[in-house]
């Protein structure tokens, strides 16, 4: 079982250069391939020339509407996953996007870890071959029935603990801030300081359960900021 390696090929359609660079670097760091198109036409060019697993699509483009690009993609490459990233927090855009076949919708600003988790989820949902699992060292997640195994022993995790572990494995070796974790688990509305203690509680329980099943403690505390799953 070694490191879980997942190499996605992503196309990011985003006209804000600086944001595009951050996203590309974030994905590249763990071996994913992320190419950037800054306009509708450049995106179309790339789509016809190469093949991608997941499309990260900004709705506001200088030369066209992201939703029409989404339609083009769904008409020609129906198996490509699409995550819409938009600063237009307009609900009808969201509904419309999902209706047109987008797999997910993330409004700006978002945590890069969250984007990574969403893109991964879409990628995995669409990848049909084989057992769909995620693993980190001796920890393994079966994605279809939401089970977590350590050395083959099933852990008794609550739904939130499973989600938390999943989030860590997808974003392994990266810092996850308490805020990013809280938002991932409870959504946007729970932006209270209370939820940070809450993150701590969940991590404490998760650690305990993994170690009880004979696993190592890979959840490192980064003081003042958050947590990082890494093998040291």
């Amino acid at each position, binding site marked *: 079982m070694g490191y879980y390696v997942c190499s996605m090929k992503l196309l990011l359609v985003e006209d804000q250069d600086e944001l595009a660079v*951050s996203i590309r670097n*974030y994905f590249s760091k763990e071996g994913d391939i992320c190419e950037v198109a800054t306009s509708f036409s450049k995106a179309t060019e790339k789509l016809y020339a190469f093949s991608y697993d997941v499309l990260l699509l900004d709705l506001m483009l200088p030369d066209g509407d992201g939703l029409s690009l989404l339609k083009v993609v769904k008409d020609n490459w129906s198996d490509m996953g699409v995550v819409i990233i938009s600063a*237009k927090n307009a609900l009808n855009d969201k509904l419309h996007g999902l209706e047109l076949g987008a797999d997910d919708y993330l409004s700006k600003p978002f*945590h890069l870890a969250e984007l990574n988790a969403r893109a991964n989820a879409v990628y995995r949902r669409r990848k049909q071959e084989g057992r769909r699992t995620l693993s980190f060292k001796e920890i393994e997640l079966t994605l279809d029935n939401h089970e977590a195994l350590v050395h083959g022993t099933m852990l008794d995790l609550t739904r939130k603990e499973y989600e938390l572990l999943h989030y860590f494995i997808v974003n392994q070796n990266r810092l996850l801030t308490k805020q990013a974790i809280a938002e991932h688990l409870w959504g946007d509305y729970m932006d209270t300081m209370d939820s940070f203690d809450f993150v701590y509680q969940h991590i404490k329980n998760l650690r305990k359960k993994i170690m009880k099943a004979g696993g190592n403690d890979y959840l490192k505390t980064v003081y*003042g900021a958050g947590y990082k799953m890494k093998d040291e």
Partner: protein
Amino acid sequence: MNLIVRITILFVLVSLIVFLIGGVISFNVMMDEVNSEQERFLIERLDRMHTRIEKRPQKDTLKWTKLMVIPLAEYQVERVTFSDTLVVHSQLDRLEPHLKLDAIRNINGTSYQIILYDIIVEADDIKEGLTESLVTMYLILLGAVLVIGFLASYYILRPFNNTLDIIKSFSLTKPDAKVQFPSSNVIEFKRLNAFLKDMTDKVKSDYQSLKEFSENASHEIQTPIAIVQSKLEVLMDGDNLSEEQIQQLSFAQNTMKRLSHLSNALSLITKIDNREFVDVANIDLSMTLEQMLEEFKELIDLKSINKNINILASITVQADRVLIELMLTNLINNAIRHNWEGGELSISLASNHIEITNTGPKLEIPEEELFHRFKKSNQSAKSMGLGLAIVKKICDFYNYEIQYKNKDDFHTIHIRF
């Protein structure tokens, strides 16, 4: 009461008064005319009698029906007097009022007293006839007015009513629905329609640009925040950072998040103000609330809050799902956030109201400012003070009645649907 009915009633009342006054005047004029005619008639007969006596002097008293001529022994001054009297009517055989002419005439040196009678046309008879004809005329007029009123409202006012219907169905939130007024050849209606068209077009374009502006403003704020957020995240993920530096970055990140939330909340309030939430669905409040409490369960447990939930099944409202969920989320979130460790939370939902009570510290702002924007009990807290302002907006939007009550440490928000 519509315009035509109003005008008709006014017209009918005024014409009634005119008919009454007219009736009195006609009666008087007719009475005068009849009286003077009768007097003239009697004078004429007197003159004929005079001529007759001139030709054939009368020695004895002559007594015919309605006529008496008495030769007088001595001379008297000529005079003519009229008076009313009762005389037995020859045919009817009963006393009838008569006009009596009593005159003295000197003819060929002899004085005669000549008395003439004529049956009076009675005031009652005139009144009766007059009333009958006036009432008939009034009824005809009334009928005509009603018919004209109906026709007027149907044909003449039709373009006006059409315009009213169009205005009634006018909706700001349907941008593609064009307002098209029917053409009319009545100048007033033409002007009204032209004015309304200008106005609705202006309102529509203002609304559209306002909507676009708030959407763009939100977009333009969120984009740079997204860039900063991503840069901070990349920075934090780097190696060789001191704990102090990571803390600073984390703080900066939290602040950016707050800015983003603030912008979202303000844009949401603007959207409610712009009445952009027009999707109406039948929402099962009971179920929605149960689901929400399930989501909040962990947070409630973490604070060891005792909850007392009393939800009546299948309570529904007609509203936009997004707004209702937002309202409930904000209320529950508030009741947890401002609660004490180990405090109380009770939620009750009945057919026409919801009540959420929580324990918590005393308000530091006046009660009446609780629903104002940016008013928060604890100025340094991380909350923005927009939660209840949004709840209030939503309640106003749907005409729900929202109230805050406070008793000791218990704070209650009561919403009546």
